[in-house]
């Protein structure tokens, strides 16, 4: 039985195509994926991301605990957020997530919907010995995202919080349309924008206020279809597609969130340190499709007759007009400009490794 978010009836009344995703019934699109994608690139879009999971970590040991289970540095300033991976001892990825530091003794971890149960068990199984209390607030928390270059102009009509003072990857507690919200300048689109964490009971009021305030900018509700094309266009990995328990952050070129340069003792450190020294046997790369069509998740990549990799995500890039992919390729084939072929329905499509992001004109990267 799929769960509904607090905004479910709103999506249905807007005519969304609703489909099961990660245990929730979610809006895939309202009008067209391309239109919704373009609204976020050019003006502003609103998303219901209430399926995402929220764990609150409190206590004197919070920083120490997060430094143990996360690969990135948790000892950031209050009011900062950071992206990280959470890994198994063998370096495989449990999940990738954003963590918001409220204070040294309080953090909010935001995890992928598909991993909530797995992550909850994982986090709790490692909490022994740390002075922390962890609460799963996923069901009581709604997440409404406003993304696109006009986001600040929309949100400033609804809050007394000084938005220009919130820099990228920072957050404050404030109010939106009279409802309490954690207002964070984060997102998954490559554009400027905010993520608003509220109580589920307040989600509808916040959604409606944002829609009204955004009307003059042509705000559009955006479904998970365009969320996927937006993130792929800027080269962001998606757990379950591009990364999972078999890939390490080093292979996924997420080495920047693995703090090997400090003495932080995190789960998976040994394997990642070795992999960084010896170089991994494979890498995630960006591929640009030469010509028409595009390979999708699972398509095999060839150098002549030799199989050298597999596509992990593939789509048209609506802002670019051609196909783009993320792929796992053997070491030696990751260099920019390497020409390969993807097999699609028995035919070969030429592709070339390119520098990420594919779309370079986003208002945030």
């Amino acid at each position, binding site marked *: 039985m799929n769960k509904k978010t607090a905004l479910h009836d709103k999506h249905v009344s807007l005519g969304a195509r609703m489909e099961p995703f990660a245990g929730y019934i979610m809006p895939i*699109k309202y009008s*067209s*994926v*391309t239109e919704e994608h373009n609204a976020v690139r050019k003006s502003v879009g609103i998303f219901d991301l209430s399926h995402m999971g929220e764990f609150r970590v409190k206590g004197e040991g919070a920083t120490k605990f997060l430094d143990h289970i996360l690969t990135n540095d948790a000892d950031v300033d209050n009011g900062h957020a950071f992206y990280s991976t959470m890994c198994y001892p063998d370096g495989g990825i449990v999940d990738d997530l954003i963590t918001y530091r409220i204070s040294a003794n309080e953090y909010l971890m935001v995890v992928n919907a598909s991993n909530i149960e797995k992550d909850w068990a994982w986090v709790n199984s490692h909490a022994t010995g740390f002075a922390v209390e962890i609460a799963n607030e996923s069901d009581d928390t709604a997440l409404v995202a406003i993304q696109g270059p006009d986001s600040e102009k929309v949100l400033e009509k609804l809050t007394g919080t000084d938005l220009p003072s919130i820099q990228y990857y920072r957050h404050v507690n404030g109010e939106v349309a009279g409802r309490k919200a954690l207002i964070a300048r984060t997102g998954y689109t490559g554009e400027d924008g905010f993520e608003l964490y509220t109580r589920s009971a307040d989600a509808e009021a916040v959604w409606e206020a944002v829609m009204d305030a955004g009307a003059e900018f042509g705000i559009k509700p955006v479904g998970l*279809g365009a969320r996927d094309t937006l993130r792929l266009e800027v080269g962001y990995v998606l757990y379950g597609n591009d990364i999972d328990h078999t890939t390490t952050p080093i292979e996924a070129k997420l080495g920047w969130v693995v703090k090997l340069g400090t003495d932080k003792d995190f789960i998976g450190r040994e394997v990642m340190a070795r992999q960084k020294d010896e170089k991994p046997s494979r890498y995630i790369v960006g591929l640009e499709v030469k010509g*028409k*069509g*595009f390979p*999708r998740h699972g398509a095999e990549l060839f150098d002549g007759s030799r199989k050298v990799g597999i596509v992990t995500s593939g*789509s*048209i890039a*609506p802002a670019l007009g051609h*196909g783009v992919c993320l792929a796992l390729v053997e070491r030696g084939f990751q260099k920019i400009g390497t020409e390969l072929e993807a097999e*699609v*329905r028995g035919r070969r499509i030429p592709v070339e490794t390119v520098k990420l992001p594919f779309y370079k004109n986003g208002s945030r990267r």
Partner: protein
Amino acid sequence: MSNVPEDLRYTDTHEWVKYLGDGEYMMGLTFYAQDQMGEIVMVEFPGLNEYGIGDVMGSLEAVKTAEDFYAPFDCRVARVNEALEDEPALINEDCYGRGWLVVVRTDDPSAFEGLKTAQEYSEFIGE
């Protein structure tokens, strides 16, 4: 209930074909097929070449899936719907009109007559 216009002919691979006169036939994707595929985001057209019956002519990429389209009979491609280059979703909006795919030529009128009628296609898709 799908929309299956009476004046068109159909293939098992869900193309519709319309006689334009003078040996020319327009073809496109049926309402049923575009509805199954969902939003189409890219069209790969054939060259202006000859194709045998059942040959792959091109392909359609939707958000979640992709399908080839096929030559309904031995023919030569005369022109393609270039409007779909910029607006592939025209196939979803107006599959029997502005969302047409290609125009082909054949000198054998019996090839067209051999395709499914609207009634036969409706039965084929179970309606």
